[in-house]
């Protein structure tokens, strides 16, 4: 498998070419710094993203509260995590940093509130 990865570590945006199979990298080129190399390796083996969305809140002036995954979750789990967030049925008050879903979709990552609804 080969992948062209655009590095997002800095504005330079190097295109890094990675080859490999089943989580091992056989060839990597096009990076211009160690941080870029590490980024491309992670992107190739197990890409992760911070997920943000909103959840419904009852008994509050605001209809929604903003939420996030505390740390990044695997990219291929984003839509599964969205389904779980959609099921949330919160009642105010919700404080910034409150844990709303523990270990979402078995990722080991919590969904927390980033907004505040009092």
């Amino acid at each position, binding site marked *: 498998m080969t992948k062209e990865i655009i590095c997002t570590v800095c504005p330079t945006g190097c295109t890094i070419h990675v080859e490999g199979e089943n989580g091992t990298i056989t060839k990597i080129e096009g990076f211009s710094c160690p941080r870029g190399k590490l980024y491309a390796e992670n992107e190739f083996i197990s890409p992760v993203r911070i997920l943000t969305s*909103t959840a419904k809140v009852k008994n509050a002036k605001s209809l929604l509260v903003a939420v996030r995954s505390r740390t990044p979750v695997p990219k291929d789990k984003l839509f599964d995590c969205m389904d779980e967030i959609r099921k949330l049925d919160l009642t105010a008050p919700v404080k910034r940093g409150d844990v709303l879903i523990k270990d979402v979709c078995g990722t080991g990552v919590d969904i927390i509130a980033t907004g505040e609804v009092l």
Partner: protein
Amino acid sequence: MYKIECDVCVVGGGPAGLAAAVSAKQNGAENVLIVERDEALGGILQQCIHPGFGLKLFNEELTGPEYYGRFVIVAKELGVNTLLNSMVLEVGAKTVTCINSEYGVCEITAKAIILAMGCRERTRANIMIPGTRPAGVYTAGTAQRLINRQNEMVGKKVVILGSGDIGMIMARRMTLEGAKVEAVVEIMDFLAGLTRNRVQCLDDFGIPLLLSHTVVNIKGNDRVESVVIAEVDENKKPIMSTAREIECDTLLLSVGLIPENELTNNAGIEINPVTKGPKVNQYMQTSIESVFACGNVVHVNDLVDNVSAESKKAGAAAALYAAGKLKKKAAVTVETGENVRYVCPQAVIPADEKVDLYFRVMKPQKGVVITVTDGENVLFSRKAIKVNPGEMEKATVSVKNISSLKVSVKEA
């Protein structure tokens, strides 16, 4: 009329206003008042639920609500006063007139004023897209507000015009909420927003980015039924033989932002025709010496971290001015050299200090050297692998005894 007196009055409680108010307080202004039109502080960051904020300032990746939340906490601790649900009607050299449903018309007298009104999105009318006028044409920011604050989904099949950051972020947001984004269409031959957003918002979800394309027609009676897109030539003129129709129910526009300066204009403050914001010196002081300005009302930023840094300067300077410690002196005008569209601040008062010059290039360029010169004297020189109009650049220079300043970007 209801009357209020304060040392520093800040117009706008978004990221710029919050940072400026906190800094004014930290620099000795006793009575600092933020006047805000919305029912809460935070400005546009209330709807910017995505991550990517604070990488420079806090060295961590925060969402919009987390970012402004930190400033609100500090502002409260320091005792910054706020007047919410209040629309400012007029700004004078030392007065701010606003209207509020509880007190009616209020007149605020301040020793210094900070303008932090932010910016507005360009609309369909600004870019004059032909076609019918159905429902379903939104600016990206309006759609963002509806989805993220008001729980209203705006459409199911979407085309986005403009590759600005908000447009790309909305492409991801709508996809996560179950919509199908057919394409992001950009008239320029390069991306308008940050590369990071192209990767994480478009490429991640297989959303096509069509550079050198634009929307040439909107069809539909009650609701958008389709848009027609076409490639453009080097003069941005559509090549009609390339036109094709994309079925959709929604068109989002991410076609640029304009600083919101009705109040500034009416106050008679000098405006820079390129940034469309007030001209400022390194203290973020406008042509009226008691009025300061910061954030997107001055020039549209791509990172809120830069807004906060600039607003901190405005707050500190306004506090000094209110205390009678910032005296007006002659300034040199900052000149824009090769491939530089604008520089902010536009003027610098020579002083024994370092000044950050923020600037944008006119066109993308690779392998360049950025210089700041005072006549023959090179004050700053840095090589860059590439520069892009979508990413603001910075040069920090000592401005002691300068007689001129010019920023240039040339081939290395």
